């Protein structure tokens, strides 16, 4: 087993199994994963900050078993920041906060390819910083159908004076984020609101949209998953890798890109692979910056 001890910002980090191929059909090793996260660090860090991190670990690569880790592993280095959160059952749980690049690399070294975070920070667990529409295509639908739904959603939201920001899920779908950042609306509010929107969308575009979870009901449709607006749910963090055959990234898009591509035939064109993610982020900056900054209120209708 290869081990390499590096020092980042004065903190010692022991990296292991660097040559292990975590995406065997593509050829992408632990070393590549670490390099990706260190290059994307400046963009992803603000989106991870102060949020209870859920690790999704693939110790033997994307083709083998994975496991979720919500609790911060007990063997974590002393410098990893943690927070205590309360779970549904009232039980306390210690979670990791990826508040510095060292922690990000430590987490990546655990083969946690995917980084999942809740919509609220640990200091204000009841009030989400954003409302989300998780657009999940059925088996016979694809990301271009999601793009169509996203564009309708955007128009609907903008007439409610709400700006929204899309990103790829890195899998098959799209996520539309509506920044709030006012510490005002609760998960109950965002869930109620997003559900009403999903139901209206389903009613008006019945061939394209469903607001129901059941898989058999939605093979050709896009499921608007409003139930992600919940304190106990997490979303894949923007700029996180996904565990698929290829190292695709959950990457922010411009509405313009969706408009251009929504009509065309190749769903793969919307996917962003790790190398493109780094070069696009370096060129365009963080397209998801406003999701953390923009203050918006849900209209009291």
């Amino acid at each position, binding site marked *: 087993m290869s081990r390499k001890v590096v020092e980042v910002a004065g903190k010692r980090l022991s990296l292991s199994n660097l040559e292990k191929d975590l995406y065997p059909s593509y050829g992408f090793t632990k070393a590549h994963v670490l390099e990706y996260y260190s290059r994307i660090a400046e963009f992803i860090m603000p989106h991870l900050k102060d949020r209870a991190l859920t690790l999704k670990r693939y110790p033997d690569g994307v083709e083998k078993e994975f496991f979720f880790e919500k609790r911060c592993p007990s063997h974590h280095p002393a410098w990893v920041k943690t927070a205590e959160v309360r779970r549904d059952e009232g039980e306390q749980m210690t979670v990791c906060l990826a508040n510095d690049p060292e922690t990000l690399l430590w987490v990546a070294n655990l083969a946690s390819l995917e980084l999942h975070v809740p919509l609220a920070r640990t200091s204000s667990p009841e009030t989400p910083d954003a409302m989300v529409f998780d657009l999940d295509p059925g088996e016979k639908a694809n990301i271009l159908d999601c793009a169509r739904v996203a564009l309708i959603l955007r128009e*609907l939201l903008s007439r409610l004076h709400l700006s929204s920001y899309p990103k790829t899920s890195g899998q098959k779908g799209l996520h539309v984020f509506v920044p709030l950042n006012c510490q005002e609306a609760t998960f109950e509010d965002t869930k109620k609101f997003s559900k009403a929107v999903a139901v209206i969308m389903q009613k008006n575009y019945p061939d394209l949209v469903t607001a129901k979870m059941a898989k058999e009901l939605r093979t050709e449709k896009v499921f608007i998953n409003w139930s992600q607006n919940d304190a106990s749910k997490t979303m894949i963090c923007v700029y996180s890798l996904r565990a698929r055959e290829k190292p695709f990234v959950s990457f922010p898009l411009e509405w313009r890109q969706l408009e251009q591509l929504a009509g065309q035939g190749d769903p793969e064109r919307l996917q962003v692979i790790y190398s493109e993610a780094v070069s696009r982020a370096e060129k365009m900056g963080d397209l998801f910056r406003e999701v953390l900054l923009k203050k918006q209120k849900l209209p009291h209708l």
Partner: protein
Amino acid sequence: MWSGTISFSLVAIPVQLVKAVKPGRISFRTLHSKDYSPLARRMFCPKQEKIVPPDEIVRGYEIGPDRYIPITDEELESVSPERSRTIEIVEFIDMKEVDPIYYDHPYYLVPLKGGEKAYRLLAEVLRRTNRAGLARFVLAEREYLVAVKSTEGALTLITLHYSEEVLTADGIAPKEGKVAAKEIKRMEKSIKSMMAGFDPGKYADERREKVMNLLKHKMKEQALVEAPAVEEEEGEGPPDLVAALEKIMHDVKKSR
């Protein structure tokens, strides 16, 4: 997790404490058989026949039937020991004298930066002498008696039970009857024929393996169930919100 220093006389070794065992128990969620919704535990008051919210729950020490001494978190905290930053070794004992009945929970001590050399030295000397350092140490609001010993070049820390927690063996061993020398010889012989080195790798939790295989098999067969999404309320949402959205939706459709 705890980090601090092990110390005695002039030695101070910075270390971090990590768990040395991971219980292999497979845990299951409890689900409602009707729709596979995960179930939650609630505190129930049998007298009022209702669920008690967390802010109405207090602790009581039971002193007799229906008689309690209520105690608050603050009161308990006021008698909790201060978190310690050091594991101060007060004596070095022979580990053979400690009956395993006293062993509570094992941890590894991981050397922190600058402590590696002293760590190696202590581990080596403890190994050669088969001694363990005895210390008192506060972990998670409780003070423990601990033994620091050497295991395969690493330092391990074992929390020990206090003597008052260990139940005596008095009255367990039968007093009556003599054992014949011939019988002792015979049993010694049969034990000798079964002697072996301790190789824990030879044994595995077979039930755990079987359960895991069963689960893997069921996973392949797609014998999975999905809990329904939590629906707070039936219907579309607050009527005024729905009406406003309907109107906007109408405009959106017209403009597209």
